[in-house]
């Protein structure tokens, strides 16, 4: 009888240490989610408030640049806004996971949505990065002129707004990995 009781207490101690690890991972998940929501919000706002008007007129380029002129940058703003909204909505669910560590079904729903949102965010960020690269360097083979030569502050703004988005992509990778580790430990 005594050996049974000793074994029972050992089993419960093992499960509580794994539970504390799950709880720690859930807390890290919550913190990373708030970080990613700030990153995407900052990117969307930084890209959405771009506007530069040149004081002169040239032959080749229009004298006003807004993010709406390039449809890819519009997609970037929309993708970042959608992902920011998703992250804000998923914060209560993540907090629920901190409180109750043993649920797996809602964690699986969370990991599915995280994967889809990560794909959307990566698509928006990398397509905007391609356009920003084109704006900086141009392309002589396709006769595409580098508009950054004219629009300096517009260019700086659209380049800087990519940073928050890419940081959020890395954070999403970590979120997916954390959710998978917690699911597999249960």
């Amino acid at each position, binding site marked *: *009888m005594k*050996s*049974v009781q000793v*074994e*029972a207490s050992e*089993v419960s101690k093992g499960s509580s240490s794994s539970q504390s690890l799950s709880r720690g991972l859930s807390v890290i998940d919550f913190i990373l989610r708030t970080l990613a929501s700030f990153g995407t919000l900052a990117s969307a706002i930084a890209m959405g408030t771009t506007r530069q008007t040149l004081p002169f007129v040239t032959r*080749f*380029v*229009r004298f006003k*640049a807004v993010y709406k*002129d*390039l*449809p*890819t940058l519009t997609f970037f703003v929309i993708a970042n806004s959608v992902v920011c909204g998703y992250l804000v909505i998923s914060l209560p669910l993540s907090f629920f996971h901190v409180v109750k560590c043993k649920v*797996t079904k809602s964690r*699986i729903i969370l*990991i*599915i949505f995280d*994967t*889809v949102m*990560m*794909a959307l965010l*990566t*698509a*928006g*960020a*990398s*397509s*905007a*990065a*391609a*356009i920003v*690269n*084109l*704006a900086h*360097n141009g*392309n002589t*083979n*396709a*006769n*595409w*002129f580098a*508009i950054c030569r004219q629009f300096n502050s517009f260019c700086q703004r659209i380049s800087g707004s990519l940073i928050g988005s890419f940081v959020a*992509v890395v954070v999403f*990778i970590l979120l*997916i*990995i954390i*959710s*998978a*580790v917690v*699911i*597999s430990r*249960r």
Partner: protein
Amino acid sequence: MKSGDSTTIEVAEPSSSSKGKATVLVAPKATGWKKGVAIIDFVLRLGAIVAALSAAATMGTSDESLPFFTQFFQFEASYDDMPTFQFFLIAMALVSGYLVLSLPFSIVAIVRPHASGLKLFLLIMDTVALTLATSAAAAAAAIVYLAHNGNSSSNWLAICNQFTDFCQKVSGAVVSAFVCVVVFIFLILLSALALRKH
């Protein structure tokens, strides 16, 4: 003493002082389900290899030379001309190489349905590969969209009007890469479902 659905700890006769013997009984239904998921995972991986390889190959062989020349345009176009397309080619080649290397791990996961460390490793690497593939596909899609439509605000002309074959091949490569991305999402989904311990 019973703890959990699938584990039975049998305690020896009370007179002996030996430790209890733990035998793990697994319901056959759980093993069959996990094996089915692992087989679907393997088949999806094969499909993703086909998609990624075809995307890389189509982009790599997309050279086109026009039989005439005009004042403004060069008379040949290839993926070399755009750094974005070079990145696309390298990234899709890396993704297809990773997928080929992950096939043995997937086979091992079929044979041993309860190796959760292996599945977790596959899921982590799949996430990284998904990011790379999505990034390459989206960047190339942005350039292809620009090539199709041009942009009047920045005076970027639509080069697809001249280079129709090049444009078609490159667009096909982008579509194939997005198919690969969708397959990756399903792979991650399946791995997450299979990681559960009942």
